[in-house]
């Protein structure tokens, strides 16, 4: 507590005001908490505080002294008020420091974060690259007719190229004893379905699941995704095919990877193309995560749409030309992220899923 001293008999002088101010400031420095600061305020600046009383008593002084003491006292008032405000902030800060401290290294309150499957993420990335080039996304049935999966793609029954697509057949026979339904072996059947449904120009991409009767290993799954692309119009050329696929690769893999086009064979294109990308080394290990011995990795089959495919859907192959391509997003993901085994994708182990 601070003693509220009675006004002494001596009249206040500027010097005595200064002395009081110094005393008050000294006391304020010793104040160590908010209640003490309040006591101090009452003692000096309160209704009956020393400074208040002093100012109230000014009226009895002679004018010269009153002016001098008054000015000094008003100055003292604002000095003390500022000092109090500062001291109050200091005390508040000290109080926060003393009692509000957290162990910031404790784990945060968990937020449950969901995520998308890596295949979904890659498919979206690839689709958006092509959508930016005017392609629309369509989807098709996973259980497909032999007619669309093979026949319309210039792969008639008995064609040796059918060996390229070992199929899982649906257990159903028609009256001729044939099995007309299978799990689609590629997304290419949508080429014919799309063209049957519309006139040129056509620009579509078709993501979806495909199936092959194939032994699985680190680079082969019997269940996988494919993204098919098709562009047909007057004036589309092989040069356009190259340009479009270059641009896709640049968007998905960046400028650093090299691209190679070479001749390949698919019955529904002519000329046929294989697109490969330069293999890469993990920057930290210097190792190639996949296909260690190979400089180039095939990522896509492509080519100019075969005239028989165009004629089959009623397009005039002399007037319209186009290109088609198909790629495996898992393989592209493996290359992009350095995944060493395709079988991780559909084992659905959260330790894998949570890396993407």
């Amino acid at each position, binding site marked *: 507590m601070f003693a509220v001293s009675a006004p002494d008999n001596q009249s206040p002088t500027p010097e005595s005001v200064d002395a009081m101010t110094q005393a008050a400031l000294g006391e304020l420095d010793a104040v160590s908490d908010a209640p003490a600061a309040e006591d101090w305020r009452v003692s000096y600046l309160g209704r009956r505080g020393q400074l208040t009383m002093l100012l109230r008593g000014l009226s009895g002084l002679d004018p010269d002294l009153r002016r001098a003491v008054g000015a000094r006292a008003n100055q003292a008032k604002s000095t003390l008020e500022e000092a109090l405000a500062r001291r109050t902030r200091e005390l508040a800060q000290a109080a926060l420091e003393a009692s509000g401290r957290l162990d910031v290294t404790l*784990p945060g*309150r*968990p937020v449950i*974060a*969901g*995520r*998308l*499957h890596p295949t*979904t993420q890659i498919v979206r990335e690839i689709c958006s690259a092509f959508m930016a*080039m*005017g392609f*629309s996304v369509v*989807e098709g049935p*996973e*259980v497909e*007719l032999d007619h669309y999966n093979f026949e319309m793609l210039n792969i008639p*029954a*008995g064609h*040796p*190229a059918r060996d390229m697509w070992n199929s*899982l*057949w*649906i*257990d*159903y026979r*028609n009256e001729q004893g044939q*099995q007309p*339904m299978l799990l689609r072996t590629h997304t290419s059947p949508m080429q014919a379905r799309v063209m049957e449904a519309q006139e040129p*120009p*056509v*620009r*579509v991409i078709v993501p979806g699941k495909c199936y092959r009767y194939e032994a699985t290993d680190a680079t082969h799954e*019997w*269940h996988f995704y494919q993204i098919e692309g098709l*562009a047909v*119009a*007057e*004036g589309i*050329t*092989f*040069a*356009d095919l*190259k*340009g*479009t696929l*270059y*641009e896709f690769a640049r968007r998905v893999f960046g400028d650093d990877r090299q691209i190679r*086009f070479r*001749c390949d*064979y698919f*019955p529904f294109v002519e*000329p*046929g*193309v294989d697109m490969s990308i330069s293999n890469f080394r993990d920057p930290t290990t210097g190792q190639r995560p996949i296909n260690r011995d190979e400089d180039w990795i095939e990522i896509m089959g492509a080519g100019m749409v075969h005239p028989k495919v165009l004629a089959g859907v009623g397009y005039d192959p002399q007037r319209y*030309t186009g290109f088609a391509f198909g790629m495996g997003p898992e393989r592209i993901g493996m290359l992009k992220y350095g995944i060493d085994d395709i079988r991780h994708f*559909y084992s*659905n*182990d*959260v*330790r894998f899923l949570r890396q993407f």
Partner: protein
Amino acid sequence: MLIPFSWLSDYVDITLPAAELAHRLTMAGIEAGDVVTRGGWDNCVVGYVRSTRPHPDADSLTLCVVDPGDGDAIEVVCGAPNVAAGQNICFARPGAFLINTHNGRREELKPARIRGVVSEGMICSEAELGISDEHDGIIVLPADATPGVPLDDVLGDVFLELELTPNRGDCLSILGVAREIGAITGQPVRIPDVAYPETGPPVDNLARVTIADPDLCQRYTASVISGIQISPSPAWLQDRLARAGLRPINNVVDVTNYVMLEFNQPLHAFDLDTVADAHVVVRRAAAGEQFTTLDGITRTLSTDNLLIADPAKAIGIGGVMGGANSEITAATTTMLLESATFHDLNNRRTSTGLGLRTEASLRFEKGLRPDLAPIALRRATQLILQTAGGTAAAGIIDVFPARPPDTPVPLTEQRLRQVLGMDLDIARAESVLASLGIATRRTGPDSLAADPPYWRSDIAIEEDLIEEVVRIIGYDEVPTTMLSSPIPYHQANPMTGLKDAVRDALAAAGMEETISYPLLSASDLERLHTAGNGAAGNDPAPTLRVSNPMSAEYDIMRPTLSASILNTLAYNQAHNDGGFRLFEVGRAFIPQAAAGDAGELSAELPIERELAAGVMSGPRYNANWLNPAAAMDFFDASGALSGALARLGLAAAFEPADGATPGDGIFNDGIFNDGASNQSMFHPGRYASIAASTDGAPPVPVGIVGEIHPDVRDAFGLRPEPVAYFELRLAALLEIVQAAGQSEHRFRSLSRFPAANRDLALLAPVNVPAGQLRQLIQRVRLVERTELFDVYDGPNLPAGARSLAFRIWFRAPDRTLTAAEIDRAVNGLTRVLEREGGATVRS
């Protein structure tokens, strides 16, 4: 297949390093993998075995004196049974690096003492040189080999390993590959001369051929050679076949194989004395006809199989395999050599049907040109005369019932440019085609016609020629341009868009996406029906099966996502700790039943139903210091769904699905009553239908959510804690979203006036669903929204009652509500709740 350079060089000069050549072939469409080099045998030379004597201390060993070509006489110990004096052999001196056949490693050869005798070198087997695994005997080199010559010069070779596409059967032959190399490197190709002395009687006097089924045999050519002597082939022939991976048999059979590898035409030799009437009949097999092929297996044939026969019996399956009854034996003196053109598709059907895919059928099934048959026939006859002696009949038999017309393929400069998008003139195309041996003639200033050569069966249309031109020029030469054709109208694909939105919404609700095989086993589906008395479950619906599944685990196309995601949960529970929130967006497959025939499928494709399914199970949070360890349950799933649907602009409502009215539940509304999802998989009383609505529209059922029945949970091997499962039918969601028009999100203006809230604690019978009370509250005027913030059903309450506390917000769009107005609204609310919900306000 492996292509040895030593053989290839007979036909074309190889002017590029092997790796470069392999790369150029690959770029041109003939994929050449590894270049395999055989050789590098330092300190190995041709040696001559001067003499042998038995090892004094070991019966199985021989002491050989070897002359390594410099007149030296080196004694070595040899364990091979086939070593003999007078042989040329592969001699390795100390310092040579050989494969140690005991451990497979390459090791340096050192002088060794073997049973007391010092061996100053080694006579090598193929295994020791790394040529093959053959270690039963030493390699015996041809008698004309020169001792002292480095072994690399005799046995060394470089091989191209080709992976051919089905259209390029011509490159199953050395000449075919030589032609490619010639075109790529600009080198001329040397085609072997096929003439031979025709000194015998006219061939028609010796044998005749009838084609009874010309649809399956386009052409049949044959020669007859008499007085042949069957013996092992000369060393050069054996060596060539061995390098190409074929086992030498005898001089005649080896020649047929040699010419097949050289020209690509399979040939077959018959002992003519076994052919009745010397008359070959090419005919379909009779149904059920039996025939024993060369491999000793008796096969039952059908009328789809083509036989080579004589008037009395079958002697071969056309283009697949000959018969044991007519094969060339050591006693054969007169032979008929067949070079025929069989139907590609029929040949493939026969060989795959019989499970007998031979070197011959692999070639026939890709389609051989009939013009090839007589050329290969003459080449083989020529070589048989050289290796087996004898006299060839004059002329050849050539039965060619329907010679197809010539089909020249046109090519115009305009089309070249239209397809390729590059400036290429017809003259350039002409010279490229010429380099491939494709003869062309000009049909105009900018056009030509090409005759497909006899070794190619893949050139039929103009685009085929364009590919020939551009693949040899190189795809790198084609410019790179961006599409300049008109961009088609964008095709909206609302289901694809919705699936993406649902994925994003569920991920935002804290769930992790999985993707699983859409094939299941019958036992997976049975597990879904294991619960309780099963009476509430629907009968399992007919399913779509795969006739050749990868395994029995995956033979049914899933009719529901539930089994897939429960399996995924089980897998993760087995491999990882913690709680799981998993979802999958995928398809279920509902077969279309044939009309009026129970259980029979129709020829129509199945319905592919787009679904989103999810599971939540395990601790809500991983062990942490802030949140209590509690297991997820129904409300985690329903809450996540509410959040996810809200993100899609939809309000969710949950109704008990085991409804009071039989036949009125969601399982009977035409969406869920297909047996794919069944009521019995859920914990009784803990599952609900999910209804969704846009602002103001009536709610429409879109799915189910509930805790899995403990029996089903156990059947899937899941941990004994609640498993909340949900399934959304995306077609139903899509309908709601599309009915909402342009957007399911509707802007409502923001009121400038404040809301006021009141808390209301209600005492309600326990059988009155909270959702019903909530709906009653929300129907009242001025109520903006309401939240249920407390549920209490402990002691101190009347029996059969529970307490539900709602916070209710009131707001008017045009004014600040007065206390009196709010009181009136609350009073109205109280009356409605009492009358329609049996609930009273607790004081």
